[in-house]
């Protein structure tokens, strides 16, 4: 296998799985079988799809741009990124190994034949609606139940029924965005980025690429060249977004890559909570997902960005699965602004992702809460960067990594304090849990402090589940797997507390699924 980067520690480990004597071989087999079958989002939807010509070239980019009827400036922007990308090399520093990616073997654009965007939800093809329903995102019901057209809700009603507006992205296009009109009343712009390019070109032009520049890194540059759809959110001055916003990314077509781009701008004193979910069908081939997310928080604004990443992780032998190479960065541009990233990572064959905060405004705050669970042959190299530039900026990093099966889970983070970031503060805590003896947990924190008055603390531990705790739970009659799930959920509680409620429930169950069959 032609591999990129990583360590050689696994090389002796390619044969049959060796199991401790104390564990029943049948149980292990059964658990192994469960792992891939447990992926409930692994179905594929049969729908006629339009593809861009396979492979990546200037023509592909022109095709995408034309398909979206984009203005000339954006095409130029894409081509410039592509030109740059050709000169770049794929990074190999992450602690992940995967076969060499053939960038010409993917379709860079796939859209349902019936068209990209539908005037109303009724026009969305049945197959797509069913797909989202099956995934627990009933687009139609949400709108109907709460009455979109003309229905005026009372504040009390709004409180009773927590609402989530959804932008549904299916392969390369956004197929539906719910509650748009509702949100418009509050002045909130919530739409796919392809639409925003036409409807709010000035806003898009003003902020696109200002947090993650075109040529930021190999995958972000690729995204800049071929990005298909994603979400654009703008919260005007002083507005607290009346509902949770979310995007649900679904990769469906075979041999495609998904390259969405999300841009969220919170103007002065605005607040928004945004959720992101992702799933994909079980396929034998690896699929590529290289997204870019840019957040801009102006003075006193706050953005809460939560992700539940459940891309197809590949089967127990490491066949298939998504390569998740994502660049996410938030810019606390204004004083007293706050950006908080919360992520629950359970999917993907390979993850390479470092949601970051540039703390530019004085007194701005960055937070990163993460749970990364790897199982089977999954590899995750994830963490955050906190770049302290402004005075009295604060950041907090809480990262919990859980490795099981034959997986590898790496926390990689940077805390950097500029000379001028007087009285900056950082607290980092990263814990790793190993379940079984064939997995790996790694912690690679980078700390760069150039300011004497800054105070940085980092602590980390790596342990296995406490046998005493497990025994305590077991002797109370709790089955071993339930006990592990219980203890693990206790271990990750800190992080889950920061997830919006709807997602916390989903995340809890995801966590259970990922850990089944891992006791050992």
């Amino acid at each position, binding site marked *: 296998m032609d591999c990129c980067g990583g360590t050689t520690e696994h090389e002796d480990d390619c044969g049959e799985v060796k199991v401790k004597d104390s564990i029943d071989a049948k149980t292990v087999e059964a658990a192994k079988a469960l792992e891939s079958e447990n992926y409930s989002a692994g179905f594929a939807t049969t729908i006629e799809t339009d593809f861009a010509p396979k492979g990546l070239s200037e023509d592909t980019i022109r095709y995408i741009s034309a398909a979206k009827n984009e203005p000339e400036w954006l095409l130029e922007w894409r081509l410039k990124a592509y030109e740059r990308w050709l000169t770049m090399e794929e990074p190999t520093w992450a602690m992940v190994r995967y076969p060499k990616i053939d960038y010409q073997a993917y379709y860079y654009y796939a859209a349902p034949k019936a068209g990209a965007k539908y005037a109303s939800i009724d026009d969305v093809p049945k197959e797509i609606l069913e797909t989202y329903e099956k995934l627990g995102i009933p687009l139609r019901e949400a709108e109907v139940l709460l009455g979109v057209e003309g229905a005026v809700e009372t504040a009390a009603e709004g409180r009773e029924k927590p609402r989530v507006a959804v932008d549904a992205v299916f392969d390369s296009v956004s197929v539906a965005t719910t509650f748009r009109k509702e949100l418009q009343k509050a002045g909130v712009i919530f739409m796919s980025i392809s639409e925003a390019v036409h409807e709010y070109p000035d806003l898009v032009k003003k902020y696109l690429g200002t947090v993650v520049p075109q040529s930021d890194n190999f995958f972000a540059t690729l995204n800049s060249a071929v990005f298909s759809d994603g979400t654009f959110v703008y919260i005007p001055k002083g507005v607290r977004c009346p509902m949770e916003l979310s995007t649900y990314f679904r990769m469906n077509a075979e041999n495609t890559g998904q390259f969405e781009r999300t841009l969220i701008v919170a103007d002065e004193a605005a607040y928004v909570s945004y959720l992101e979910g992702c799933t994909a069908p079980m396929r034998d081939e690896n699929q590529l997902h290289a997204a870019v997310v840019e957040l801009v928080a102006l003075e006193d604004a706050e953005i809460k960005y939560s992700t539940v990443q459940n891309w197809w992780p590949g089967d127990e032998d490491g066949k298939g699965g998504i390569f998740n190479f994502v660049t996410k960065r938030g810019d606390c541009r204004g004083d007293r602004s706050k950006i908080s990233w919360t992520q629950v990572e359970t999917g993907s064959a390979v993850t390479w992702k470092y949601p970051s905060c540039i703390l530019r405004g004085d007194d701005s705050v960055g937070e990163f809460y993460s749970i990364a669970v790897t199982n089977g042959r999954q590899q995750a190299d994830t963490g955050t960067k906190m770049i302290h530039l402004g005075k009295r900026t604060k950041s907090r990093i809480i990262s919990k990594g859980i490795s099981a099966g034959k997986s590898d889970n790496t926390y990689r983070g940077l805390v950097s304090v500029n000379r001028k970031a007087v009285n900056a503060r950082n607290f980092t805590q990263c814990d790793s849990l*190993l379940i079984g*003896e064939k997995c790996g947990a790694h912690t690679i924190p980078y700390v760069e402090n150039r300011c004497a008055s800054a105070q940085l603390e980092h*602590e980390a531990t790596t342990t296995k589940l406490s046998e005493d705790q497990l025994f305590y739970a077991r002797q109370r009659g709790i089955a071993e797997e339930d006990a592990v799930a219980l203890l693990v959920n206790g271990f990750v509680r800190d992080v889950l507390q920061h997830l919006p409620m709807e997602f916390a429930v989903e995340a809890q169950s995801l966590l259970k699924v990922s850990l089944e069959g891992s006791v050992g």
Partner: protein
Amino acid sequence: MTTALRDFIKNPTAAELELVARYGMQPEDARRERAFLAFAETGLPHRRMEGWKWTDFKAALKALETPAAASAKDPLPDDGALVFRFTPKGFEAPAKLPDGIRMVVQPGVQAFPGAEDVPMGALAAALAGGGKRPATLAFEITSSEAPRLHFVFEGAGEASFARIVFLVRSGASLTLTESYLGGAGLTASVLEFDLERGAKLNRTIFQRGGAGEALAVTGIAHLGAEAEMTQTTLAFGAKVARMETRVVHQASGSKLNLNAAYLSGKGFHADITTNVRHGAPSCVTRQLTKGAVLDGGTGVFQGKFFVPRKTGQHTDADMQHQALLLEDGAQVFAKPELEIYADDVECAHGNTCGALDDAQMFYLRQRGIPETQARAMLTEAFIAEALGMADEAVRDVLLAEAQNWLSS
């Protein structure tokens, strides 16, 4: 050969060309060549290499020149110790060694496995020797009562290289002190230790160089069953100074204490880098690094614990790095890293970085203690913990050196 090597280092700097020329003057030797090729792979390490991003020899060392500053005075006492002296051109050793210590001056180079992981160590191995200096200086320690060995690296010159190998036999113990006193434009030494079952090593490194010098001290140790190693470093840095230690726990029950303190003033850079591999079950590592940095100074700490699958079970390891930035303009970079593949282990690491506690300063100031002195007192108390396990003969001297630096 020299021409081919010259081409081997991409875009060589003047300093690298001079190193190639020095290599060309050495007698031909396949093992020396392998060591040099390992170095030539990257040339002088630079910031684009992961392990050297904060310690850039290529940028700091433009040419091999004799620095203006003379060597520092050696503060470590030599009474009761056997003194060995390395200068850029010479080497001195006691005429007679007591029983239990055997020294072999080898004109040829020994093989240097793993050279590619330590480019500066490889360079030292490739260029050690010539003139009166041994290519490899080897010691066999068979006594548990052997006197302290004291190594001094000093003297004016362009460059000084040394390679020293110690074999500490089962049950024997070695107390070793090293003083790196500067004087040469580039000093690179590599010391290797092989500790057999139950062997003991107490190693202390004192380093003080000029602001125009480059220094790399590479230590590589293999610990046998129940062997014990304690290392204490006090480094004041140089233009660029790297104190690198790689330890492998090779058999179960070995113990390692790895302590260091760095004090880095204006124009000085001190790098403490360690890599510990828990290659056997039930081994213990305790690591404490403390640093204090002034305006214009740089401190670097890079620690790594590697715990392999199966063999690393029941590892008990703890890594702590704490740094004080005493003034604006000081900078500290740290990377305390864990790479773990065994599930039944206890590994922890901690890293803190900040200024002195205002409340403590205030307490001392209101007792009438001037600011500089108060700062020195608090910093000394902070640093002292990392020096506490040094050999008795030198512990107080190290503390006094730290004190002097802090109060000046």
